[in-house]
């Protein structure tokens, strides 16, 4: 009996808001309360569905980015994969069934992720610069295949994937995002792979010495990130009803921002998927809220930056740090 009680207590502690996520929780609550007064029409079924859809498109890619950042890596090429994977899918399987298009897009993303992984492991290049290079290369290939034009989408399933919703309230993309999160959760918390990922992120040399196959880990997570980005890309294509090489500008930096606002450390080793999802939702809420308030859409760039700084500053307070104290040294990238 005692044991059970202790187990329950431990469970409750786990559920309690993690301190490094405090920033994203506080901002979410504050902004949602503010919107209730300032823009009551935010809380309509259709609008919530639109926000969930936006959040899902960012969240699916950001889930893969969370795994990468926990392992101490970045993928800057996701911006290009978001455009290239759907373009390849529509070019190769444009006349086939919707399912085939989605599959080709995901597989293309996985193949591009494999290229990233091979450059990093076999070519001995740091992930940041390796994916910076493939960002240029993949982006260029996407533009060349589509000749710089937008490829129109006529397939019903793809359009439904980007715009459809269950009961007009829960978008399919959001359900896919939940599935993706489940997958990444299992990978990070229930498989050996998760421990290897965290070990690689917290101390690469120690992980190597302890016999972890780092090449396998990095290949695996880059393929995962590529595949998820291919999936997010085809959903975005369905939403836009066309595929363009530059359809997701700054997706790489936005995904990294979502991961970091969610409380995952840039230094690797530890991170949370829930935080990343909350941050993706927060960014979508703010963009949507500003539109509902009738504010010039240019303010949303300003808002994104302010959220980034606020969430990190609040998270710092949540972790027991103080602002404004003269620090010994600035944080290092």
């Amino acid at each position, binding site marked *: 009996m005692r044991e059970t009680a202790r187990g329950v207590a431990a469970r409750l502690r786990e559920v309690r808001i993690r301190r490094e996520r405090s920033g994203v929780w506080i901002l979410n609550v504050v902004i949602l309360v503010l919107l209730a007064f300032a823009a009551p029409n935010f809380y309509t079924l259709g609008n919530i569905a639109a926000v969930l859809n936006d959040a899902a498109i960012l969240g699916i890619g950001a889930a893969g980015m969370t795994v990468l950042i926990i392992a101490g890596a970045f993928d800057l090429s996701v911006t290009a994969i978001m455009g290239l994977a759907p373009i390849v899918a529509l070019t190769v399987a444009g006349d086939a069934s919707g399912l085939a298009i989605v599959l080709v897009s995901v597989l293309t993303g996985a193949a591009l992720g494999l290229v990233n992984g091979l450059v990093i492991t076999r070519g001995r290049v*740091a992930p940041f610069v390796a994916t910076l290079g493939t960002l240029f*290369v993949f982006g260029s290939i996407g533009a*060349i295949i589509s*000749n710089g034009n937008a490829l129109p989408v006529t397939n019903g399933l793809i359009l439904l994937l980007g715009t459809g919703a269950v009961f007009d309230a829960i978008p399919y993309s959001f359900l896919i995002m939940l599935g993706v999160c489940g997958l990444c959760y299992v990978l990070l918390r229930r498989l050996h792979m998760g421990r290897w990922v965290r070990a690689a992120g917290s101390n*690469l040399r120690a992980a190597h010495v302890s016999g972890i196959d780092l090449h396998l880990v990095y290949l695996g997570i880059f393929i995962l990130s590529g595949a998820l980005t291919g999936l997010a890309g085809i959903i975005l294509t369905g939403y836009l009803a066309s595929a363009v090489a530059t359809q997701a500008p700054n997706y790489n930096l936005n995904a990294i921002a979502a991961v970091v606002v969610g409380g995952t450390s*840039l230094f690797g080793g530890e991170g949370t998927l829930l935080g990343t999802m909350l941050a993706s939702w927060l960014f979508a809420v703010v963009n949507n809220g500003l539109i509902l308030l009738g504010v010039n859409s240019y303010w949303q760039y300003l808002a994104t930056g302010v959220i980034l700084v606020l969430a990190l500053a609040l998270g710092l307070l949540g972790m027991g740090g103080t602002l404004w104290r003269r620090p010994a040294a600035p*944080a290092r990238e």
Partner: protein
Amino acid sequence: MKKPGLVGRILAADSAASMLALIAVFVIFSSVNGRFLTGLNIHGIIVSAAISAITGLGMTLIIAMRALDLSVGSIMGFSAIIAAELLAFGWPLWLVIVAGMLVGCGLGLVNGLLIVLLRLPSFIATLATLSMILGGQLLITQGETVPIHNAVFGSLAIGTIGGYLPLAAIIAALIFAVVWVVFHRTPFGRHVAAIGGDVRAAIGAGINVNRVTLGAFTLVGLLAALSGMMVAAELQNADSTIGAGAELTAIAVVVVGGTSLAGGRGNLFGTVCAAVLLASIKAGLNVANVSSLYEDLVFGGILIVALMVDGLRRGNRRRGMLVV
């Protein structure tokens, strides 16, 4: 041990990859197309290279400090827009240029303060300001293009001295000299490298890390502002597309130039070589009537190959280990 000969020393240099690629690009393009080596084309290459080299030189310092500045593209656009607006107000030219550079300094200082006071990683702080400064640009211009009707301002980019020597090349050479002296011949430069090499050791040695960080980010802000104004001078207008994506291009230029993101070292000459390389690829493909869609393919390919050659050249690395 026998000292390596001239060829060996060149091959072992950190800027070897960019220099060899530059020579290869020049040989290929000039043999394929006679129009590559014409005065007009070379002039275009120099102007374009000067602009990306000036931002790249600042970024080299930041990367040598083991930091990153993602906001340089936004700073380029912001100061270009401020300069264009001030010219439209009728401010004198010299004051406009000074004001534009001060704006860049101010924005760079903000980056530094976010990093030093809030203890944010430079990547995050400058990612936030990238977005905020872009918002500021759009709010000022309302998405419109600000025209520039000032021929003298235009000469900042496309002007020549005596009809041959481009003014942009002189500006870039001047900046190179100043940054080289600052980096290699002043305590500040040594401190930048020391912080990049090992920040704990730097603190232990009594280096004021906060002050050096503020200084470096202010400097890169100033340089980004200057190159942003040169872009505006070349285009004869300013809008929020100036500098869009320039931060990643600048990082790529620095890396192709042989500076490692691991920090502690900076290769200013390599950065200039890589800037000329990027400009030559663009100009060469343009002259050869190849679609501009291929520019990034070639440049990205060179970036990856250069890095892989570098990774394999450093050799005797433990099997199965990664470079991060």
